[in-house]
């Protein structure tokens, strides 16, 4: 057990979780106190001792599924083990059933032919979802994997493709439609009920999807062992995901993480502004306060310093090459603009437009980002980034408004399509403004390659920061202001 635990901890560390030696020891002690046959209890014991941040929980869960997966063919532990009557009945039905020859053509992936026919499986799925029975759902997931995943032993893969293949055959969207149609046919539903029923089925289908994923993982572990599989399914933590290459799910996770981050930053910056320096001696308050110590001014009182209000100019590239980064930064700009009093935001491709208004009017970041991408007038000639023209234009239209209290933030990859750089604008901005920072979403080793001219701009900036992940971004904003 201890060896297994060590392997598990090593895997967590490799996935990026900061697990210290004390925590490892705690986990080892904790394991003694929980019944080992209770898998859920073990999971929470390890979770409580090893994982100290909610954003790491998913990575932990994945690793746990792999290292402590229920071994043996049909333990059914992962499926909750409810409804044994249904399960045995289904199992018996499955064994008594010879492979129907016609169904093989449906599973072009060459899945194993034993098990249920396509229709029976669909029927089973339908029943499982309709009744919301977990045991039945687990059974359906097992059969679905049997039939459609077509797992090839020994292949060093993480199972994403198997999952995709299984789900494509199950066609859960159509199933959802069918379930809803049946519900509606069964009785008159009000709008509210309709919505609730749909949400309920969506939740059940999600559970089914997870059951399928767990089943595939379990089989892969049986095939190749925990360590090898863990290596293939390892995913970066949300704060380490490369924004430029994030998948849709990862982006969604990023946006969720961004909201508490912006609040955290606001709290931290607010604190910093309040506590940085004491103001001059407040004579009146000191005398007043000294009355409680018999007129001896034991504790001098100070005036609160007037908080400096940083003015922030955000200039963001929203062209296609940095599209996902741009959406992410726009969310960030929105977060910043709700926390600071004076934020002005500009977006450009080859033309440039001010979007401060849009951010102020919008209720939530999603709406703001949508309106910016549809309404902002940012295309000048052909819709390919032209930093030179955008910067010149910025200088002409708003250059005078950049004061010595302003901080200018430029976001972009500085891939200029071989246009003129317009770096002289930055030179001027740096003289005028308090700080000029450049955030580049590209990895540092690509800087200056091809049409990237970030080095040319860098000489005129206080700092050029590589900003590919949430962690890097958090680090940068903490140094700001």
């Amino acid at each position, binding site marked *: 057990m201890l060896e297994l635990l060590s392997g598990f901890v090593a895997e967590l560390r490799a996935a990026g979780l900061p697990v210290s030696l004390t925590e490892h020891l*705690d986990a080892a002690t904790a394991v003694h106190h929980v019944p080992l046959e209770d898998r859920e209890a073990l999971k929470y014991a390890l979770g409580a001792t090893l994982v100290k941040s909610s954003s790491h929980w998913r990575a932990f869960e994945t690793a746990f599924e792999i290292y402590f997966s229920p071994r043996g063919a049909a333990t059914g532990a992962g499926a909750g083990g409810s409804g044994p009557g249904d399960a045995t009945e289904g199992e018996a039905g499955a064994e008594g059933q010879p492979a129907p020859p016609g169904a093989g053509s449906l599973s072009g992936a060459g899945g194993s032919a034993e098990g249920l026919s396509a229709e029976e499986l669909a029927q089973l799925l339908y029943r499982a979802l309709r009744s919301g029975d977990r045991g039945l759902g687990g059974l359906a997931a097992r059969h679905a994997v049997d039939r459609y995943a077509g797992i090839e032993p020994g292949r060093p893969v993480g199972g994403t493709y198997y999952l995709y293949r299984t789900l494509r055959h199950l066609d859960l969207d159509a199933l959802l439609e069918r379930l809803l149609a049946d519900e509606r046919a069964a009785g008159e539903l009000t709008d509210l009920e309709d919505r*609730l029923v749909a949400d309920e089925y969506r939740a059940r289908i999600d559970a089914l999807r997870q059951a399928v994923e767990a089943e595939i993982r379990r089989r892969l572990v049986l095939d190749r062992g925990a360590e090898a599989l863990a290596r293939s399914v390892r995913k970066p933590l949300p704060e380490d995901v490369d924004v430029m290459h994030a998948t849709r799910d990862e982006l969604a996770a990023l946006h969720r993480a961004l909201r508490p981050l912006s609040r955290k930053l606001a709290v931290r910056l607010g604190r910093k502004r309040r506590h940085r320096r004491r103001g001059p001696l407040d004579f009146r308050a000191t005398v007043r306060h000294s009355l409680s110590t018999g007129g001896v001014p034991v504790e001098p009182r100070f005036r609160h310093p007037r908080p400096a209000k940083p003015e922030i100019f955000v200039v963001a590239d929203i062209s296609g090459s940095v599209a996902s980064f741009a959406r992410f930064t726009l969310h960030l700009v929105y977060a910043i603009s709700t926390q600071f009093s004076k934020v002005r935001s500009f977006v450009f491709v080859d033309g440039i437009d001010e979007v401060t208004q849009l951010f102020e009017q919008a209720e939530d970041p999603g709406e703001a980002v949508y309106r910016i991408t549809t309404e902002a007038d940012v295309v000048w000639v052909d819709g390919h980034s032209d930093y030179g023209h955008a910067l010149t234009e910025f200088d002409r239209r708003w250059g005078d408004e950049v004061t010595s209290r302003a901080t200018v933030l430029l976001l972009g990859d500085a891939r200029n399509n071989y246009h003129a750089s317009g770096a002289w604008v930055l030179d001027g901005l740096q003289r005028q403004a308090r700080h000029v920072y450049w955030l580049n979403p590209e990895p540092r080793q690509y800087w200056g390659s091809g049409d990237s001219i970030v080095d040319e701009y860098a000489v005129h900036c206080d700092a050029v920061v590589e900003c590919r992940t949430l962690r890097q971004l958090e680090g940068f904003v903490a140094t700001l202001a």
Partner: protein
Amino acid sequence: MSRFETIPSVAQGLGDVGYVADEGIAGVVFLADRLEKPVLVEGPAGTGKTQLAKSVAELTGSRLIRLQCYEGLDESKALYEWNYRKQLLRIQAEQVAEAGGAAAGTDWHALEADIFSEQFLLTRPLLEAIRADEPVVLLVDEVDRVELETEALLLEVLSEYQVSIPELGTVRATQVPMVFLTSNNTRELSEALKRRCLYLHLDYPTLEREREIVRAKVPDITGELADQVARIVRSLRSLELRKAPSVSETLDWARTLVVLGVESIDAAGARDTLHVLLKYQSDIERAARELLAAHA
């Protein structure tokens, strides 16, 4: 020494005092007792973090000592403080006695030993929890509000269960209190603090658990209505709202419905009482639009 027998007994016990615990919560509480470690409870507002500590105190029959954290909290408010007014009086009384003709009775060392003794000590929550003879549960509420430097204060208390007072020496706990720290996650807590704690993330409950919570806390509610409440709240949480409804708001809503004598929620009834659940006008509008008027 240990307070609990098994994990299910923790869940059962918490259920008896009106706290619906899932397996994760019960497991962590059980481990906290066995490993004698503090629990750091993190999660969105209104998911029952503080209530957990209160319920554990009630379950174990312990006294609850609460330290509410805020910005600017310092040693004298969290640990202990010398009652310097009383000390001044003591010194002045000495002077008066001397002036009154009594020969210089006590020398300075005796006086010093006297004014730095326990009767001049004002105990604050942390020290109080350490010195208590009876079983106590210490709740350090919203620990993320204190500054990073103040957090360090907690470390000695939490890992060694002792407090060092320079004039008195080290005070050790006679019995290890159960400690709960809650955090709303407005900032990252230091690694040192996290390392010393068990971590429990309290998220919004699952549908089943929320339904149970509603039924446990609002006894007059019918099963059907509780189910409806839980399902509507789950759907609301899946929308992108500025502030998702918390468990306490769910309970408020359920109580409102019971008081109004609602048997079953329809669109109109829901619209009239949504303001109990949602606290922003834009959220209410959006929920009404998405949930009540939406036509699939």
